[in-house]
């Protein structure tokens, strides 16, 4: 926002320079900026200013870590000080009792904090966010009190006489030397955070933050990603903690209270959630402002709280919010001919399917060929209290066919989908896919087995661009590791480029490439449905479940949809369709199953279904009813 406003008053030449500057890799920009800050503080600052600057840097490190947890993954953590404490104590004990050098203790402190994060995160991260807030708060308090009561770590007195770090035999003891070390650590923390943000992990986190449930259902392992965010955030906190310990020289439990957690959260929100420059600015305000107000000593926290409340009223998005530039998703990529696209997709998809069939065969399972049973639903029941949404439904879907499920509202169609995709557990019954049971798997595992789906009420990630939505769908097919993402290795870049290219191809396949840069919410209803289909296809499913794709479409769009469904089948993908549009269903389906009140009342070819008296009865009511009604009316 600020940047835009400034840009408006800048002569065009400066604008050019600005966009050139933005093209410089992030790590160079950060390093240059921090070097300039370091040199100017070194040249002009006295000891007091430098000491405050070191504090700002420490808080900024903490903020960067919490920003991953809260800003990226959307998990409200109120006990972040615990990580700071664990990092500080680990380093302090290693350095005092073990006589380790700081630079040897630092990595261990970081790793140890990460492990602690994993231990506490694993059981608790499946909780709803408000509950997570109190659990993390509790974790923070437990950690602090445990250190307070732990005699080995000095109890309430803490650890004293922590040595200063030595580097190549040279002892770092001045404030300015600490400032140098803190800037290097801060630069690392910023660069890694930025790399994570721009990787598939970052995309997965945003997807989870936007819609946890939909993310899981399109193949993002949400629990694992939340845990990753939590552990990463913990490691950043451990880094800051270890640095804090050696800098202060003596630590005790009062440095790691709930208030610290709150201050770090404040600086993240003040700066603008998810924004890296925002974290630096937030740290400057949260640490610097009370220092600047030191003259009013008694009133400074008071003034700070008023500032905070006012700030939330005037500028709730933060001081330097994350700027969303209009994305040019495929900038600089070569255009492909549409025929080539279709051929590429077909080839790639078939290769993908063959690969999976081979893997399947290696696991001693026979992969079904065209015409053999792909999906088998056996006696599926799903009760909600006393309501029998699905009551003993069995059917089989053959590989390569278009299979429709129809029925009046409330017949249990969507519930069948939910039970197949693992979103809901069937009360009873089995679902077999490729001859292997799907029961008990989590939704993202079912996606990677080869089942894709769309939703009845569209569930796109609203804050993400169209192409990013499709890229989330490609999540299960990434091959990069977290460390590669963190270092932004060439392998990771190649993988990202491949993902982008594939996302584009799927958008071309569905004829919406021109809308790739728009936000999902800016699209028409029909286009949103198309994006959902593209997102589901991107994972290369064997089986695609479409839940009322024609709802809200006009006749022309429905015709296009019909063509599209056939095109999808021609890729070799089996399609199961739920829809209320009989014209569409009758024309496109090979076979149709009819549900009513949770039971299967008919199954067969479209012409058989149209003649089936039970189906007619379910949809139109019985003729006797009409006769009775007519009689009652006095005819």
């Amino acid at each position, binding site marked *: 926002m600020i940047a835009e406003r400034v840009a408006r008053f800048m002569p065009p030449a400066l604008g050019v320079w600005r966009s050139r500057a933005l093209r410089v890799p992030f790590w160079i920009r950060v390093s240059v900026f921090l070097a300039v800050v370091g040199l100017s503080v070194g040249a002009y600052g006295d000891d007091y200013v430098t000491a405050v600057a070191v504090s700002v840097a420490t808080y900024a490190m903490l903020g960067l870590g919490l920003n991953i947890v809260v800003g990226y993954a959307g998990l409200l953590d109120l006990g972040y000080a615990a990580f700071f404490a664990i990092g500080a104590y680990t380093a302090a004990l290693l350095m005092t009792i073990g006589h380790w050098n700081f630079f040897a203790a630092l990595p261990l402190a970081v790793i140890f904090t990460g492990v602690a994060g994993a231990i506490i995160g694993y059981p608790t991260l499946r909780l709803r966010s408000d509950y997570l807030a109190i659990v993390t708060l509790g974790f923070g308090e437990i950690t602090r009190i445990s250190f307070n009561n732990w005699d080995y770590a000095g109890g309430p007195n803490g650890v004293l006489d922590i040595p200063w770090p030595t580097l190549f035999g040279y002892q770092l003891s001045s404030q300015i030397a600490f400032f140098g070390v803190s800037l290097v650590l801060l630069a690392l923390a910023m660069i890694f955070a930025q790399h994570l943000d721009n990787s598939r992990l970052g995309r997965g986190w945003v997807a989870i933050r936007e819609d946890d449930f939909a993310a899981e259902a399109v193949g993002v392992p949400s629990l694992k990603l939340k845990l990753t965010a939590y552990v990463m955030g913990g490691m950043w906190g451990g880094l800051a903690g270890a640095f804090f310990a050696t800098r202060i020289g003596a630590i005790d439990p009062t440095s790691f209270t709930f208030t610290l957690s709150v201050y770090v959260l404040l600086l993240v929100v003040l700066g603008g959630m998810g924004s890296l420059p925002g974290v630096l600015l937030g740290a400057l305000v949260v640490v610097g402002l009370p220092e600047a107000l030191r003259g009013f000593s008694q009133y400074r926290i008071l003034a700070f709280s008023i500032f905070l409340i006012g700030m939330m*009223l005037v500028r*709730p998005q933060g001081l330097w919010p994350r700027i969303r530039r209009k994305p040019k998703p495929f900038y600089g990529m070569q255009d492909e001919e549409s025929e080539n696209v279709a051929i590429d997709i077909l080839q790639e998809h078939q290769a993908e399917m063959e690969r999976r069939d081979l893997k399947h065969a290696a696991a001693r399972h026979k992969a079904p060929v065209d015409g053999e049973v792909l999906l088998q639903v056996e006696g599926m029941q799903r009760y909600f209290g006393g309501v029998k949404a699905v009551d003993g439904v069995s059917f089989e879907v053959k590989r390569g066919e278009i299979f429709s499920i129809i029925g009046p509202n409330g017949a249990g169609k969507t519930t069948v989908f939910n039970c197949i995709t693992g979103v809901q557990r069937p009360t009873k019954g089995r679902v077999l896919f490729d001859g292997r049971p799907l029961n008990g798997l989590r939704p993202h595992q079912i996606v990677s087995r080869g089942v894709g789906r769309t939703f009845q009420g569209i569930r796109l990630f609203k804050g993400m661009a169209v192409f990013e939505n499709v890229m989330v769908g490609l999540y299960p097919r990434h091959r990069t590791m977290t460390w590669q993402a963190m270092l932004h290795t060439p392998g990771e870049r190649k993988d990202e480029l491949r993902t982008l290219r594939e996302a584009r191809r799927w958008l071309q396949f569905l004829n919406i490439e021109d809308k790739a840069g728009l936000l999902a919410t800016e699209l028409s209803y029909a286009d949103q449905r198309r994006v959902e289909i593209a997102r589901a296809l991107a994972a290369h499913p064997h089986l695609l479940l479409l839940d009322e794709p024609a709802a809200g479409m006009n006749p022309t769009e429905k015709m296009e949809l019909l063509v599209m469904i056939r095109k999808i089948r021609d890729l070799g993908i089996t399609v199961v369709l739920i829809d209320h549009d009989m014209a569409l269903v009758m024309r496109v389906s090979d076979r149709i199953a009819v549900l009513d009140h949770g039971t299967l009342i008919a199954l067969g070819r479209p012409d058989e279904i149209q003649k089936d008296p039970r189906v007619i009865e379910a949809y139109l009511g019985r003729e006797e009813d009409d006769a009775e009604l007519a009689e009652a009316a006095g005819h």
Partner: protein
Amino acid sequence: MGPFLQYTVIGLTVGSFYALVALGYTIVYGIIRLINFAQGDLSMVGAYLGWTLLVALGFQHLPLPVAIVAAFVIPMLGTAVVNLGILQFAYKPLLKRSLLAILITALGMSLLLENLAEVIWGAAINAYPPDLLPSTGFAIGPVHVSYVQVALFGVSLLLMAGLYLFIQGTTIGTAMRALAVDHDAARLMGINVDQVIRLAFVLGALLAAASGVMLGLYYVQIQFTMGFLLGLRAFTAAVLGGIGNIPGAMAGGMIIGLLEAYTTGYLSGKWEDVVVFGVLITVLVVKPTGLFGERVAERM
């Protein structure tokens, strides 16, 4: 058995204070999904208003019933006014925007109340009149129960029962429950949403202030930082019982009070919070909606 019962008496007394504050958390959360971090500090405000009346203005010299009634009613009303002001100026403009912004505002409000109290009443510990209430009691076997404990526990129960009847029995209480389930549907049915939100804040403040005065009477000493720990315990209690659930908050408060008393009695005071939070985390991991919370069904 003797010590156990003695701890139980202490635990229930303290627990009833927590329960009152927890109710405030739960009511506000139920209506606008906000964890109102300032809830504990409202209690502190109530305690200080009570102190101002009793000590600074000399109400302690009035006949006991008059003094006590005044020391409850006036702070409760005063705190309600404060909370309405907070709602109007700080939360209201943010209600339609991000929940996190309100949450941060609530944290800021907690800081503000604490520091304002420090400026107004000073940082030192202030003492309630120690001999206002009789310090005697009676014994049941080995267990000593003071009249103060009985009276405070009784007042808490009375307030909770009143709240329960109000929410279950009156039209506006029904409107509150409806709003907690579905904002839009409630609005379409003609419920004045703003009015219900205001009511929730008033109720929360009334209960918090009452608990603050009771804490002052029970522990005699009050300080401007007292709201923090109280709020933390009460928040824990609300979540333990299943946030948004009124009987759950009452039960949660009692459980936290008892846990605290048993830990202090059998283990050591310094492990209090570890046990309280440990139990909370265990309960949530086993039953993610709290002890009495209902499963939230999601429609796809």
